[in-house]
């Protein structure tokens, strides 16, 4: 047998090094490759800054600031990642898993793409604003769109990362190597959650810094006029407490509603019996609307309470109103009315009681003197309709305000910066909840299903108010005025009624609606903590709201979801078939 001796073995050519355990030529024996990769990012940053300087010199300061802003955010991202790595450098397995998912996020193309969208879009957004628009509106637009957009993107990043990481571990069997080590499955999920929420915290902080800097920079640009500048200071870059008028309620109101119901029942029993709850709801809504309507014949008074004069340091408070002309077919009509504050006419101009004329469908703000508030903290705002009779009409148009946000008194109670931080905390708390929901889903389901389920949770939480109203309208029930037991009893009786009447299709629809209702009841609502809208309209994000957001959205719900995920993962066989 012929065998090669040592003398027959030729030294391998460089091209042949891929044989056996070799590396690709561009990696093998090429220390400069690593150095080039390390230098690429600083070089790109310096090039971008040079471009920004060039744009500035060429008289395009806004574009230059946008480019510099993108660089600053990118640098902030790199620094943030370094801080996270340091935070997660401990020896505990939970920290090890958390660090791995942070590295996974940085290495994932989808995550990086979404992060780059945030980093690039945020500085560009101010460039899209119409410079002819009033500054206060531009600031509100910037705040709303930048924070809403970032919130949606971060939610998608959170869900994709959490689902992708756990499902990826299971599908690629990496989880076998991890769970064959001394780590509980609960610790594994906890580590994933910790990594995702710390990354979210870093990204929310980065977005916050970017938006805050953008808002301050935009606020320094010229305003349309003095009123616009005042609006910026008093209505946007501020934190105001909101007071709403005390609604009619109590026994008298209930008796009045009951009397109307009885009247309708007597006049049209058939239509009423079909859906008594819907009829009641309609009557209550009608009463509340009537209460918010100022007709030509009467003057209407709205009582605001709890306005502590000592706590209000500003000389003025704002009356924010959005009027509508009830019986006018014109989309944008003008309404005219006079005001009294605690029975005194306001404003007095040239010794006379002046009236206000406002366009309908727009939000208007009137500065009221703080001294008009009574010592007991009440302010009675009386409105008299002074509309003229429109051509073809018999009487002046009624003025109405949307119940809730249509008529409010606001006063400054904090700084914009502090309020902004509170808003960001609420935003982060929602992401913490989403991360836990996505991990719980991934502990049980495959990637596409877990992703869809998590997105469904997100959409439901974000639009729960809309869904709840839709279900109420569909089922004819009113969840707001019933206790849980009442709701259950009522719904059960409706189901029984459908069965007794053999209305099978109605029965199926009602049952489906109840299932959706039950899903809504389980998912916490993000709508009750709409910090972005509050920030954009200069309203104080209450500390209680932040605390409850952190407690329920960032602690209680996530821990419950993680516990559920742990139970599911504990019972799950991590191999789907025989091997």
């Amino acid at each position, binding site marked *: 047998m012929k*065998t090669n001796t040592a003398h027959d073995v030729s030294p391998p050519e460089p091209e042949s090094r891929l044989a056996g355990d*070799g*590396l690709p030529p561009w990696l093998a024996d090429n220390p400069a490759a690593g150095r080039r990769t390390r230098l690429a990012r600083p070089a790109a940053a310096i090039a971008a800054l040079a471009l920004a300087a060039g744009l500035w010199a060429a008289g395009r300061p806004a574009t230059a600031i946008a480019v510099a802003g993108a660089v600053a955010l990118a640098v902030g991202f790199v620094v943030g990642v370094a801080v996270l790595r340091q935070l997660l450098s401990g020896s505990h397995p939970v920290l090890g898993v958390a*660090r791995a998912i942070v590295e996974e996020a940085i290495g994932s193309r989808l995550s990086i793409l979404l992060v780059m969208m945030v980093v690039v879009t945020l500085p560009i957004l101010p460039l899209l604003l119409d410079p002819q628009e009033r500054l206060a509106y531009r600031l509100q637009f910037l705040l709303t769109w930048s924070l809403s957009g970032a919130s949606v993107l971060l939610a998608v990043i959170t869900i994709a990362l959490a689902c992708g990481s756990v499902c990826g571990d299971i599908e690629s069997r*990496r989880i076998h190597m991890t*769970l064959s080590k*001394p780590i509980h499955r609960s610790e594994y999920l906890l580590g994933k959650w910790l990594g995702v929420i710390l990354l979210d915290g870093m990204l929310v902080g980065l977005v916050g810094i970017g938006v805050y800097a953008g808002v301050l920079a935009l606020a320094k640009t010229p305003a349309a006029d003095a009123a616009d500048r005042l609006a910026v200071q008093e209505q946007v870059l501020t934190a105001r407490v909101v007071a709403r008028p005390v609604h009619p309620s109590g026994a008298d109101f209930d008796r009045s509603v009951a009397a109307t119901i009885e009247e309708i029942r007597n006049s049209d029993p058939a239509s009423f019996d079909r859906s008594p709850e819907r009829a009641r709801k309609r009557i209550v809504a009608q009463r509340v609307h009537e209460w918010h309507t100022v007709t030509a014949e009467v003057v209407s008074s709205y009582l605001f309470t709890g306005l502590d004069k000592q706590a209000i340091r500003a000389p003025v408070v704002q009356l924010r109103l959005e009027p509508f002309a009830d019986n006018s077919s014109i989309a944008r009509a003008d309404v005219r009315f006079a005001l009294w504050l605690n029975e005194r006419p306001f404003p007095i101009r040239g010794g006379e009681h002046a009236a206000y004329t406002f366009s309908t469908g727009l939000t208007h703000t009137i500065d009221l003197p703080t001294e008009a508030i009574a010592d007991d903290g009440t302010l009675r705002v009386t409105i008299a309709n002074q509309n003229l009779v429109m051509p073809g009409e018999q009487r002046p148009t009624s003025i109405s305000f949307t119940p809730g946000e249509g008529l409010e008194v606001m006063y400054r109670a904090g700084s914009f910066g502090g309020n902004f931080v509170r808003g960001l905390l609420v935003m982060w708390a929602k992401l913490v909840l989403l991360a836990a929901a996505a991990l719980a889903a991934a502990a049980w389901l495959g990637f596409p299903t877990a992703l869809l389920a998590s997105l469904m949770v997100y959409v439901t939480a974000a639009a729960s108010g809309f869904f709840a109203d839709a279900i109420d309208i569909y089922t004819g029930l009113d969840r707001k005025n019933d206790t849980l037991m009442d709701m259950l009893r009522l719904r059960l009786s409706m189901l029984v009624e459908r069965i007794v009447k053999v209305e099978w299709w109605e029965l199926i629809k009602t049952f489906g609606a109840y299932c959706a209702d039950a899903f809504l009841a389980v998912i916490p609502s993000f709508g009750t903590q709409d910090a972005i809208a509050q920030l954009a309209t200069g309203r104080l994000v209450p500390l209680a709201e932040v605390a409850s957001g952190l407690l329920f959205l960032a602690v209680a719900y996530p821990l419950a979801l993680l516990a559920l995920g742990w139970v599911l993962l504990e019972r799950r066989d991590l191999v789907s078939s025989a091997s």
Partner: protein
Amino acid sequence: MVTTPRDDAPIDIACAGVTKTFCDFWMRPRVRAVENVDLEVRRGQIYGLLGPNGSGKSTTIKMLLGLLQPTSGRIAVLGKRPKDVQIKKSIGYLPEESYLYRFLSGRETLDYYGRLFRLERKARRERIDMLLEMVGLEAVQDRPVGEYSKGMQRRIGLAQSLINDPQLLILDEPTSGMDPVGARQIKDLIATLAGRGKTVLLCSHLLSDVEDLCDRVAIMYGGKVRAEGTCDELLEQEHATLLETSELPPPVVEEVRTLLRRHDLALTKVQRPRRKLESLFLEIVEQARAEGVRTSGASSGGEVAEFLSANEPVPDDAETAAKGAESPVDTNLLDSLMKR
């Protein structure tokens, strides 16, 4: 065979009547992967689990690691139930393929697994240095493992399985994807570790690997153990005798034939012994290395890492691996298994 563990050595793995049936979404039985398997592996033994693909080897291993729940039967690993996290401090596991995070470098990968064992930073760094040297990946330690070749991924996989200085090493196809040099090194390493008192469960369908290394072997097919015993017990041919001498000239062979015929015996085969191809290959590579021929692949690998102790409790630093081994054995569980 490299070790001769005593028959009264502690039992590190015990399975009694273990069955695993996989069910579909509706919980209907779909595949019976393992059926009524009994195993007993003693400390210091190299135990081979042989079988073709789909014979139930990997499923058995995953049940030993607590990754799968047996449908019926009982399992004790290091005296405790496989779900007990404490015992995993003393187990090293190399799966049939190295399932690694592609974005982590070789060093970061070992660091990740070191953290799962709660190893302090200093201990982690020292062990990672030694393991990287041992598996010959020092030069590529900072590159993402996604860029590693399959053999290099097996090497890093092997390194992670040893980072806790395990008492029990479970190796699923350890030499798959390795070149003959790497495969030989891994076999030598397994032999060395067994010599130091470690227990090794070796799962393979490479028969030569198992024959070279194992004290005892179980051959599985269709989820059942079809044969079990030492290699000698299983392989000895009682109807034949093999004599080895220096080269015999044809007349001497004829004389032997005549002698045997006188005793009513026949000489059935006369041939020159052959070397194993592996031995020839290794000799050529060794010679090339001695002459300084360079290669860009993983280097040959160093000595066995120092911290892989010789059947001693693990170092003091930070509650490391040996806790599981030191913790009291669930004797009731073992007894109940042994009574079956």
